[in-house]
């Protein structure tokens, strides 16, 4: 898509999506971009993100998405940890709790292992296409095994 980028009076980088939306008082740079977020300020100039910068942005977003998925998967069994911690604080034997919640604790470990492997795969991706394939795994959880 074509955009017209400029810095406004408040010093904010703005990117008009229609040519007529550029204020008459500014000089805009016409750029061809994939998304308006690809435009960045650089030492007083305005330019389009490099492929490496786009990949880094995508990785940052992917890691945030993974973090939220992991957090959601762990949250329903967080109470077990509280029970164990509470028992420990009171000096009680925690073995009965470990035994009672063995399946849930094992699933939590599996979630953490999957998290580590997905995080490594995200960080290792060298292109956006590669990262997209990792993201598909994260979103569909195809590679997640609760064992």
């Amino acid at each position, binding site marked *: *898509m074509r*955009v017209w980028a400029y810095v*406004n*009076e*408040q010093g*904010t*980088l*703005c*990117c*008009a*999506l*229609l040519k007529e*939306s550029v204020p008459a008082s500014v000089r805009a740079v016409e750029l061809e971009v994939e*998304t*308006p*977020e690809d*435009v960045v300020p650089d030492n007083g100039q305005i330019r389009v993100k490099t492929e490496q910068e786009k990949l880094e942005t995508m990785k940052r977003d992917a890691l*945030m998405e993974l973090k*939220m*998925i992991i*957090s*959601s*998967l762990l*949250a*329903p069994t967080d109470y077990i940890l509280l029970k164990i911690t509470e028992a420990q604080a009171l000096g009680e034997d925690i073995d009965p709790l470990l035994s009672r919640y063995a399946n849930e604790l094992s699933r939590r470990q599996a979630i953490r292992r999957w998290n580590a492997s997905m995080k490594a795969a995200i960080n290792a991706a060298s292109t956006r296409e590669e990262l997209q394939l990792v*993201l598909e795994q994260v*979103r*569909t959880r195809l590679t997640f095994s609760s064992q």
Partner: protein
Amino acid sequence: MITRRFTRVDLTNATEDYLLKVGEEAYISFNNVSSIPLRIATTNDTFYELHLLNSNPGTNSNILYGRVRLFPNNTVYDNFRVSVIYRSSDIHGTIYYTSDPGFSISSSFFVAIAWIINRKQYKNVRAVSNLYGWGEYYPLYWEASTDWGDTTTEWASLGTIVYPDRASGEIIVRRLM
């Protein structure tokens, strides 16, 4: 009892902004595009209700990942604060962005309602939506509230809705106040 019927204006092929009167609604149909200029002029102290319905089928093979935003004045700025809450079958969470480029409407393909307020000191869009096409993760409820932290820039054109990729659907914008 007072019954109010909105008068419809078709802005599908509009080439310049139209100022909706209170009680009027704009209808915009879009087909296989990623950027939809609403072509609606706006002024200080106005309030709107926006309905957006994607017509794309919700299959797993054509999931569109990425956020959908409304860019006021058809321009991308960088001073929006967004709070999001969402819930699907087993995923839930909250997101907070402090320097987003526009008003958050939803993500992927969806059916959404948003309320838009344009006041000099308070410019906000609050959107509620259901995302679809995400396999077994349904219904996927998504709610976002975005404040535009700029009290000096005049919001004169309601703006452009931008998808991460091509989409089709229909939009209705009603001016309530």
